[in-house]
């Protein structure tokens, strides 16, 4: 063995780099850590044609900037350890993306062998790659291979040995006149100075212009030099004035321009790009005119299915609580009342809706896992964008369907304070999961044949109001520019039973936990207040306000007042206050409070809109840092809820008496 060389294996993640490493080194591997960090370092050895090759597997990286530890490790190894060459593994089926790292390796002035892996995949996609032409344009050897089938390993080894012997770097990228001039001036200044990591002056100059964090902050000997610093500042200002962007963007742009040119020369793709099934479905789902009606139809179908299928399960649970109430019938005194009215009546009335909530979560999980919800968010946001709401508002708005508290916290991602404020203010109108038991109770009792449609209408009213008010607030309260965004839509796929089960349980568990803790606690307090006679005066004092909306009974008023603590409490409170008996709360609302379907609908609208729950109020105060806007939210939701409920009741009475 007369010659020893060191080869650094570099490449993007998921390019089959580890397989190439295994093929090159066989069983002769050593695994340790990179000095000072817990990032795995794999090394191996191979003898080939009289040369002992030491292969070091660098962390998988997309580029050699200073943004991540992996990138710093990779580039410091190349600069400081000076391997004889870098074997750059690229995925031939994703060449355009992978070559970005290649351009950065070429900039470092080190010999490179390009390992064109996954050629089988590229061929299956109909790509015809010309390795010889690629080699001549890059100035480095290019070796096609299929590492997963150990094809091309000998050729890679041959190229490594030959390239190490020739020790010739590849082409030097040209960044265009202005950048090259700036690089040249800095290079001149750096030429006689000791450079960090034993780098070349050209590479160091490029890094200085790129505002490379590691270079700028870590190397005072360079950045502290007045001449270098002055030349750099001057160049950066000049480039910004010429291009309108930072030099960093212009340099990266030049690399992509070089790659784009390469691709045109060396890769032939099928003349007609394959149109995937996802693309076909998206033509309908994302259609400008069909997208929103389709989303509303899906939402309607979701409620219809959940409410229809849950009926027998709800009946079983109801019967179970009925049986328990019968058993508790013989218990005398306050404890008997607590058991019957507080625990069984209050908590039972909430738990009976577990089936409908779980079925809804199953349906939502299926829509999420198959990739539809991302599309729904996209078409909804297109609408929101038209009314001037910031592109980033849609994530909090969608989160609001679950719970307004994390949704309002998620507005932190919105940089523009005006957009953020509008998104916070309208968020409670997105109907959260806690309001669902109220809708389910009243729709089940008063709209048996159209439960799904009625609940769907609540969500639709919420969405429409949120969009309308966001538009009003943007126009009247907080004016400003709205932003733009780009969204990647995941491909459609078949949901798995496990995935749907896990997602459903994650969500359903929250409902059960809340019912067993917060809701249970509040319902017990309400029972105690009722038992001691303290509740009725509160209800009677407030009730007249709700008279014009049709639900001016003291019990209804009490449920709305305590519903501010948590919306599910509305149902629990009805369960505690009404003598429900065999027929349940729905029937008791009709017989004891004189409710009609019209009153029930007005009450549902009130529950949807009026004052958000305490947790939402608290998080609004915290996130806005303002009592003014918190009280504004409480005030406008209360007035709007009352107005709409009253309008529905009063106008409805003209038609249904």
């Amino acid at each position, binding site marked *: 063995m007369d010659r020893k060389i060191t080869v650094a294996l570099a490449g993007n993640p998921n390019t089959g780099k580890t397989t190439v490493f295994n093929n090159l080194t066989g069983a002769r591997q050593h695994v340790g850590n990179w000095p000072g960090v817990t990032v795995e370092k794999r090394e191996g050895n191979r003898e080939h044609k009289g040369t002992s090759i030491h292969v070091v597997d660098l962390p998988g990286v*997309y580029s050699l900037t200073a*943004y991540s530890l992996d990138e710093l490790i990779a580039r410091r190894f190349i600069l400081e350890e000076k391997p004889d060459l870098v074997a750059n593994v690229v995925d031939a089926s*994703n060449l*355009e*993306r992978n070559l970005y790292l290649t351009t950065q390796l070429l900039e470092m002035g080190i010999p490179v062998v390009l390992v064109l892996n996954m050629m089988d995949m590229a061929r299956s996609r109909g790509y015809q790659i010309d390795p010889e032409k690629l080699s001549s344009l890059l100035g480095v050897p290019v070796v096609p291979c299929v590492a997963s089938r150990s094809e091309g390993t000998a050729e890679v080894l041959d190229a490594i040995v030959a390239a190490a012997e020739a020790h010739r770097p590849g082409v030097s990228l040209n960044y265009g006149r202005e950048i090259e001039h700036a690089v040249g001036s800095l290079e001149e200044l750096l030429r006689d100075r000791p450079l960090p990591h034993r780098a070349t002056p050209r590479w160091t100059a490029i890094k200085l212009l790129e505002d490379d964090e590691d270079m700028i902050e870590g190397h005072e000997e360079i950045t502290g030099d007045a001449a270098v610093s002055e030349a750099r500042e001057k160049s950066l200002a000049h480039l910004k004035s010429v*291009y309108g*962007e930072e030099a960093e*963007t*212009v340099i*990266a*742009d030049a690399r*992509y321009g070089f*790659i784009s040119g390469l691709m045109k020369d060396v890769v032939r793709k099928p003349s007609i790009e394959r149109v995937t099934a996802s693309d076909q479905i*998206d033509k309908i789902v994302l259609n400008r005119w069909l997208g929103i009606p389709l989303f509303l139809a899906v939402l309607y179908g979701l409620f219809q299915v959940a409410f229809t299928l849950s009926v027998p399960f709800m009946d079983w649970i109801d019967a179970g609580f009925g049986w328990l109430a019968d058993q508790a019938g013989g218990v005398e005194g306050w404890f008997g009342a607590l058991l019957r009215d507080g625990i069984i009546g209050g908590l039972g009335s909430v738990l009976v809706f577990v089936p409908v909530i779980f079925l809804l*979560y199953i349906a*939502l999980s299926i*829509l*999420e896992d198959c990739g539809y919800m*991302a599309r*729904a*968010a*996209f078409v909804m946001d*297109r609408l929101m*964008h038209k009314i001037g709401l910031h*592109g*980033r508002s*849609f*994530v*909090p*708005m*969608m*989160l609001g*369907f*679950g*719970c307004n*508290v*994390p949704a309002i916290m*998620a507005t932190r*991602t919105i*940089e*523009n*304070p005006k957009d*953020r404020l509008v998104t916070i203010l309208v968020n409670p109108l997105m109907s959260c*999961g806690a309001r669902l038991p109220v809708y389910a109770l009243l729709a089940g009792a008063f709209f048996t044949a159209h439960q799904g449609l009625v609940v769907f209408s609540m969500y639709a009213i919420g969405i429409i109001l949120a969009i309308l008010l966001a538009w009003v607030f943007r126009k009247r309260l907080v004016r*400003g520019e709205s*932003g*733009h*965004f*780009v*969204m*990647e*839509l*995941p491909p459609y796929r078949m949901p798995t039973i496990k995935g749907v089960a896990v997602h459903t349980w*994650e*969500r359903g*568990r*929250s409902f059960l936990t809340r019912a067993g803790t917060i809701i249970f606690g509040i319902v017990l307090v309400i029972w105690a207040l009722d038992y001691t006679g303290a509740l009725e005066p509160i209800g009677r004092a407030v009730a007249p306000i709700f008279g014009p909306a049709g639900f001016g009974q003291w019990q209804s008023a009490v449920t709305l007042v305590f519903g501010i603590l948590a919306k599910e409490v509305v149902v629990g409170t009805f369960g505690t206050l009404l003598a429900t008996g065999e027929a349940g709360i729905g029937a008791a609302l009709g017989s004891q409070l004189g409710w009609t379907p019209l009153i029930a609908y007005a009450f549902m609208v009130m529950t949807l809109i009026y004052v958000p729950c305490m947790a939402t109020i608290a998080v609004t105060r915290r996130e806005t*840092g*303002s009592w003014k*806007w918190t009280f504004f939210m409480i005030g406008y939701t209360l007035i709007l809820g009352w107005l709409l409920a009253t309008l529905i009741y009063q106008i409805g009475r003209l038609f249904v008496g």
Partner: protein
Amino acid sequence: MLRRILEELRTATEPVNLTELSRKLDVDHSALDGMLLQLVRQGKLREITAEGSECVHCGGCAAGRASTAEGKVYAVVDQGSASSAME
């Protein structure tokens, strides 16, 4: 190409679908993904996540998270922040 992406996004009148953008710019989907990552690193774009929110297992993520966890969302970073509206 990076400057063209920024230009497309800054002049867009509505949200942009990555697949459509890749067709319009005649760039591989995966290459465009890499370019967006570059722009995020350079502070020109920002990846939108549900960060800041604490998971309460409320189910809202079916809509909110689905659109950010798998399909990435990037927003153009505002040039010059607006004055505070929360006063």
